[in-house]
């Protein structure tokens, strides 16, 4: 038994190495009472890759993201980050989460902290970085997202777009292996979406590994390597944006893409 497990682990590691895979999600299920939200989701993400998850509301997109860093406990299935099994209950989940950035729909900046503190608190309190070092890092990350002049502001004093950029800086300051974006632009006024997407596009171009739940097809078409179409808790179709747009395998995919393109337009050309 042990030998078999060992063998399996080695296989997985070997697979990881050869394909540069950072994230593997295997047969993930999530059940809430009688409701099965995720019904066996399997996919992987290589280093530097960006994938966009789309799908009707209530189909398990956010649940899927939260299962990846176990903010929600998956019912079954496995998640691997590099060669660490996230779903292993003996794994140090706090350490794993520290290397997975997360950006939320409602930003969730810490309301009582100035923007600078929001960004440096992770490096300081989770990674034990010195205050000077963390401040320097936070200033750099904030400058990168265009908020160098807002470091002393409190979240409530910023626009939604600024708050979301600050929360991206907060994620980046942890130097994550990948970042999960949970509908990062859904709570924004239309004229503020562009500034957040620009930051995300630049990140993707700089080689950040990203898993994005979003219906912003502008982002998907300009930088995403793949679109994952999730419906009713399963991946219905997965492939490069052009393939999904031009030659979808399923009618449902075509229908859905058509609908969201019509609804959301393409903010970024």
């Amino acid at each position, binding site marked *: 038994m042990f030998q078999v497990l060992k063998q399996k682990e080695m296989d997985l590691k070997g697979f990881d190495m050869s394909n540069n895979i950072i994230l593997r999600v295997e047969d993930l299920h999530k059940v809430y009472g009688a409701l099965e939200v995720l019904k066996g989701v399997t996919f992987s993400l290589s280093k530097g890759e960006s994938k966009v998850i789309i799908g009707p509301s209530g189909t398990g997109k956010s649940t899927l993201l939260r299962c990846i*860093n176990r*903010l929600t406990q998956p019912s079954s299935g496995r998640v691997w980050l590099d060669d660490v099994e996230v779903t292993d209950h003996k794994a140090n989940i*706090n*350490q*794993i*989460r*520290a*290397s*997975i950035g*997360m950006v*939320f729909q*409602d930003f*969730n*900046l*810490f*309301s*009582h902290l100035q923007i600078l503190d929001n960004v440096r*608190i*992770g490096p300081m*309190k*989770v990674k034990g970085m010195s205050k000077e070092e963390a401040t320097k890092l936070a200033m750099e990350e904030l400058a990168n997202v265009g908020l160098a002049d807002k470091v002393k502001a*409190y*979240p*409530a*004093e910023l626009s939604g777009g600024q708050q979301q950029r600050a*929360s991206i800086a*907060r994620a980046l300051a*942890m130097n994550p292996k990948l970042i999960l974006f949970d509908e990062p632009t859904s709570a924004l006024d239309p004229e503020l979406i562009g500034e957040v997407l620009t930051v995300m596009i630049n990140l993707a171009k700089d080689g950040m590994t990203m898993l994005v739940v979003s219906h912003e097809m502008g982002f998907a078409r300009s930088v995403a390597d793949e679109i994952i179409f999730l419906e009713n808790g399963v991946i219905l179709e997965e492939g490069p944006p052009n393939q999904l747009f031009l030659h979808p395998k399923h009618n449902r995919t075509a229908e859905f893409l058509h609908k969201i393109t019509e609804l959301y337009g393409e903010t970024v050309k």
Partner: protein
Amino acid sequence: MGLLNLIWSSFPALLRGTVVTLELTLAFLSLGLIIGISLALSRVYGGQVLAKLASGFEQIFRGIPALVLLFLFYFGAAEFGINLSVVTAAILAMGLRSSAYQSQIFRGAIQSISSGQMMAARALGMNLYKAARYIILPQALRFSIAPWSNEYAGVLKDTSLCYAIGVVELMRQGRYIVARTFGHSLLIYILIAVIYFILVYIGLKGLRLLEIRLHVPGFETKRNGLERI
């Protein structure tokens, strides 16, 4: 002339009583604060057992009159061979009682913080302790100042109950003076009432200033951002 003399001669005793009253208040509130926050955290983040225990503790200490608690801790404990000094008995009875009330204040405040704050903290890799310490409590404690000022006023005034088990605080010093001077109860009790009033008043002002000082945009303490609606 006689009255002024009486006030003048009572002054040192009343001052000593006032100091003891303030010391008791500080002790009750401090014990209540430490245990109250722990109870609130247990109820919100503790497991089922811990939450139940905390809740039971609160029920007991909120359900028994302060005077009965004082007698239980002083006279009652003595029957079990536990001889507590009056001050120790008072601190235990009133401090634990206050913790049960303070716990409600903190629990309400913690639960009013959006769940996204905890989620973001955990997503950064903070464990539950760090998330509570650096993210949740700093916000919850800000919300707690206003309701906590009620607890401050209540606890300060309730120190006068400790008179009943023999703590020589402000009220008992007053009784001594009344007994010594035959009569003049009205004057002495008015003096005592004024002293309590001033202590409460100053404390409430201080807490209000603290609330304003710790104010953070988005946690409105003034008009909720609305001008004369």
